[in-house]
């Protein structure tokens, strides 16, 4: 693939069994624009967590009949993903981020250990940019950007973003 931006849009049913094939496909495309195998894994994780969240929280009927849209914009050394759902749940993303930061910094209680909702922690740690928009009755749109970095420039430990 050259320097020009390539766009792919896929609409998938709200079915987690489809996510594994989709994340592998997107990671393979990312490797073609300069990401290495390790980053490919990180991109798989981003696609997985965002699609799983959209399927779980963003499909109105909640019985696997809803749909989500995944848009993928590729250029050399960069991938941008936009995952959109039509869920009608409203949530305060600032509160979610604050809760996640507290859990990571202070540790998890037993109750929290068994709570769902950690996908966004992975997304926050792995993405270079993250933007979440929730529109009442219209759904949620999550945009992440990931840029290629040579292995020697990557941080060894993950720092939770402030």
């Amino acid at each position, binding site marked *: 693939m050259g320097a020009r931006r390539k766009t792919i849009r896929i609409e998938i049913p709200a079915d*987690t*069994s489809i*996510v*594994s094939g989709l994340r592998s496909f997107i990671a393979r495309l990312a490797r073609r624009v300069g990401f290495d195998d*390790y980053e490919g*894994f*990180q991109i*798989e*994780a981003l696609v*997985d*967590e965002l699609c*799983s969240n959209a399927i779980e929280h963003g499909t109105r009927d909640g019985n696997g009949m809803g749909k989500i849209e995944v848009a993928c914009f590729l250029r050399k050394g960069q991938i941008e993903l936009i995952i959109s759902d039509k869920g009608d749940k409203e949530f305060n993303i600032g509160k979610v981020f604050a809760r996640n930061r507290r*859990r*990571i910094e202070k*540790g*998890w209680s*037993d109750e929290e*250990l*068994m*709570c*769902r909702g*950690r*996908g966004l*922690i*992975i997304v926050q*740690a*792995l993405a270079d940019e993250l933007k979440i928009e929730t529109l009442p009755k219209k759904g949620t749109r999550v945009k992440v950007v990931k840029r290629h970095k040579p292995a020697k420039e990557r941080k060894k*430990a*993950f720092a939770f973003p402030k």
Partner: protein
Amino acid sequence: MEVDVRVNIKDAQKENTKIIEVEGILDSDTMPKADKTISDFIEKVDKKGLCLILDLNKLKYINSSAVIKLMGYFITMRNAKGSFKLVIPQGMVYDILDILGAKKVLEIYSTLEEALKDT
């Protein structure tokens, strides 16, 4: 064809120690299958004083929903006065657990030999 997930329960050749080896992928699609085997084993076994080692050396991928299940095994074993250890080499799976703060909660070893030595 590549294996999605495979769970092997092994005898550790050491008193009160069992090894569960998980190979392949642990995600929202495969975890229910793996969880059935692991949870059935944990439910039936005498947990008091038992050291359960989950060997993830051959695991290629894990997501957040699968990590929650691992936390559940840890809590079950700890509450029954047993112990739970994870074997994960440095790499992608280890990094996901690191991001989620699992290192603060779980006993993690990079090789099975190290985990067995510490039982």
